[in-house]
């Protein structure tokens, strides 16, 4: 085969890969409960309005140390946290992370974590739309 055919095939494969590439992410953030309002405000500023919020228990490095100030004498206890789940298209990932950081950071242990996961599919039940179109 000629070199031109190889190049053509290569370009076509790239196109195909792009099409099948995951273009959405699920961002999960664990934050301090009292920071929820600030995080929401920062997210709204970036026009990120869709999220799921739940109250959860957990601990990382903090192991209840900061909690002494907040009430519980026992260390090692599970602490109250807020878990945010936000599904976004790729171009919104950085703004979302920045907004959560800005809203949730105090500099003390216990500020929380942000996890970013590939999101393979998204379906809007009402319209049966799929993928990027369904996410926002």
């Amino acid at each position, binding site marked *: 085969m000629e070199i031109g055919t190889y190049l053509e095939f290569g370009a076509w494969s790239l196109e195909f890969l792009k099409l099948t590439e995951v273009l959405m992410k699920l961002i999960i953030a664990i934050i301090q*409960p*009292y*920071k929820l*309002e600030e995080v*929401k*405000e920062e997210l709204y500023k970036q026009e990120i309005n869709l999220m799921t919020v739940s*109250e*959860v*228990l957990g601990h990382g490095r903090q192991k209840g140390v900061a909690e002494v100030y*907040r*009430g519980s004498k026992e260390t090692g206890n*599970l602490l*109250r946290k807020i878990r945010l789940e936000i599904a976004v298209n790729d171009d919104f990932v950085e703004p979302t992370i920045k907004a959560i950081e800005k809203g949730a950071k105090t500099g003390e242990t216990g500020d929380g974590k942000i996890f970013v996961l590939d999101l393979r599919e998204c379906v809007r039940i009402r319209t049966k739309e799929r993928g990027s179109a369904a996410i926002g």
Partner: protein
Amino acid sequence: MNGFKVFLVMAFVIFGVFAGPCAFGQETALKIDTGDTAWVLICSALVMLMTPGLAFFYGGMVRKKNILSILMQCFIILCVISIQWVLFGYSLSFAPLKGFWGGFSWFGLNGVGLAPYADYSSTIPHQVFMIFQGMFAIITPALIIGAFAERMKFSAFLLFTVLWATFVYDPLCHWVWAMGGWLRNMGALDFAGGTVVHVNAGIAAIVTALLIGRRKNLDSNVPAPHNLPFVVLGTALLWFGWFGFNAGSSLGANGIAANAFVVTHTAAAAAGLSWALLEWLRNGKPTMFGVASGAVAGLVAITPAAGFVSVIPAIVIGLLVSVFCFTAVSVLKPKLGYDDSLDAFGVHCVGGIWGAIATGLFASKAVNPLGADGLFFGNPKQLLIQLIAVVVTILFSAVGTLVIYKVVDILLGMRVNEKEELIGLDLTQHRERAYTVLE
């Protein structure tokens, strides 16, 4: 910690100042009526129950991170004002000295004995009258809590409460209810505390709400009541206790008590119904919260009138109070933007003013010969007297509250810091939480 020390010092100063000379009051040998005594003792217990009732009424309305702070504030008032009352509060309110307050002659209940005291109640022991009045002195500052809920520092709250009870409640109580009190001499009718308790606390509420400012994030996240069943439980306890509040104010097991009992119940029922109907018309659905608010508003409004009006006026008073309070709470408050968080002003001040005016309209000597006729019974002067009593209460309470607030704010700082407010008062003021997530 520092706040606590300042509070202690202030407490000693107050107690020290008041530990003045004590004198014995004169008591003549009047005969105790067992029925009257039993009734007023029971009523004192009923009124006591209103403060925990109020705690649940308010506690259900706040966010779950703040419910213990409300319960705590109500219960600590129960503790601290009870002590204040027997030490010097009762003396300041009811002792025979004429003028700003009653003086210190009954300090530590000196001279307040087990025989009747003719000036106030000739058929029950003086101490029964004292403890019955004490329950009123307790619930009045507790009513104000609704205005500054979810953002006041506990130490500051405690000092504010003691100062307010001493320098606002006790003098006003003296003017309206004590023998020789100038509003009483003028002929103002306040059967069970419409002005002394409700207008007084309601004005203190709006003043503190304005001074302390709005809660954080109020616009982005309108706080919903975290436990409406608590609000309803509190309403039920208040309604029940209010029979003691109003029917007990006759100070005897007699016809006036029966009248007060019946009109109190009727007005509460009418107001609860009317609030629900208003919501139905305006918002499309009647709510449980609305019925509860209405019932309390009705109880507030009938309070000054309970011993002077008959049952049809009671229905009118109840039906209309919800119109006024509903307007204050859901039209006036959002428009003016003050954060009277749990509507202490909107219900108690507005309802109390309406009650005082309604007393001037509907009072009848046919119901109570010791009372007076109101406007609708041919005595327009009574309405004027009622208005004067309301205006005096408003002015005195507003100025007194303002001064006390400023003093405490300088000494301790009234408001918690932003982080504490966001975390919640339960954890930051009391290191406790009301609810767990997992067991």
